């Protein structure tokens, strides 16, 4: 039985945060766990079992998705970006900096997912209104902040990114 199980695993190659990585995954392995446990990037979190909380949000070919609801094998040959890839040359991404500056996080558990959603949001819509931000992050649950300072942080980042366009 052990060997049959071994056979069921297949090699999955992803470009994650710009780096080519590969690892073995059973077909049923969820992308979130592949990222966390096989690739060792634990910034992507898991907070629910019903595709509700968004703590596991990553960019899949540039689009934010819930990585608990994607199979690792579906990500084979695709591009994934996680919170660990936001910082460049020891400089925080403007959104990371804005979350810090505006107290946009408390326990920090939803933060990586919230950041990844926000990164994509600002790419598509560099100057969102408060309502657009609130709708844009409505797939990510936060229990600590009441969202007020998250909205503030995203707005702040959007202003700063307008001055100095940053890449993801």
């Amino acid at each position, binding site marked *: 039985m052990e060997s049959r*199980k071994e056979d*069921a695993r*297949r090699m999955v190659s992803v470009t994650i945060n710009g780096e080519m990585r590969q690892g073995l995954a*059973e*077909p*049923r392995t*969820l992308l979130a766990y592949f990222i966390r446990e096989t690739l060792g990037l634990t910034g992507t979190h*898991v907070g629910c*079992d*019903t*595709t*509700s909380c*968004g703590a596991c*949000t990553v960019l*899949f070919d540039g*689009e*934010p*998705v*819930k990585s*608990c*609801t*994607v*199979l690792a*094998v*579906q990500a084979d040959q695709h591009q994934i970006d996680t919170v660990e890839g936001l910082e460049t040359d020891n400089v925080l991404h403007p959104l990371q900096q804005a979350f810090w500056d505006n107290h946009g996080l408390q326990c920090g558990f939803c933060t990586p997912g919230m950041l990844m*959603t926000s990164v994509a949001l600002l790419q598509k819509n560099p100057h969102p209104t408060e309502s657009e931000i609130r*709708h*844009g*992050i*409505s*797939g*990510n649950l936060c229990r600590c902040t009441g969202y007020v300072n998250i909205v503030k942080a995203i707005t702040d980042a959007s202003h700063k990114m307008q001055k100095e366009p940053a890449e993801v």
Partner: protein
Amino acid sequence: MFPSAFEYYAPKTLDEVYGLLAQYGDEAKILAGGQSLLPMMKLRLAAPSVLIDIGSLGQLSSATETAEGLSMGALMRHKTIETSHWPHYPLLRETAPWIADPLVRNRGTIGGSLAHADPAADWGAALLALGASVQIESRDRIRHMALEEFFVDLYTTALEPQEVLTRIVIPVPATAATFARYLKLERKVGDFAVVGVAITVSLAIDGTVAQAGIGMAAMSGVPFAAHQTESLLVGRQLTPALIKEVSESASQEGDPESDRRGSAEYKRSMARVFVERGLSQILQQWESTQSA
């Protein structure tokens, strides 16, 4: 949280899909965007032994618009539809932002949603209002079917084990003056509809209703089109009095269940309120285009 084990295939062509379906029959499930199926598998409410991932079938992720209508590939993601511009079919863009949440919309597909056949799903109501049909393919045949016939029962469609839902076809509306609204009561973002009402109305130059579609979500075991109400609208001038009449009629169609989301009476009343509100907004919009 961890699905039961399964075998996974990612065929590159429909022929390969048919081959796998022939081999595994109803042990297999087709995986499109996975936003309905994978959550069920994680809770082990579904445990197919074979998953056929059709995500690589590129030809199913685009749309073609012709004089006859709009043909959308089954793999079109909700987000793509939300951001596409099809002036003849405003209901699509009205409906898409109400589906699940923004992250799920990036991944979920229109075909996957229809094949899941949740009675509360938004696309069912909207596409029924639009009079859509589906294209179903198997190794031996291609068949077209009105969406109404496609929805058989709760979570049950007319798809046979060897078949794949490939396209959704919406006929071109009767006039260019087509207006639409999607009204949904949800308890929070990401919730299925407590009640959802999709409305599309095409008006003739003189303001009479040339064509009307009203689809309803969560008002029955399957999404349905409120035909009686639609027929009350056609050929008549859209007025507040008519709107009142048809909204009463709409609330009598369907067969909602009392549950945690509200009583049957409440849901009927929501259907009435939404039809009235939606049509009133459409009337207002039309009037403003007239005066402009």
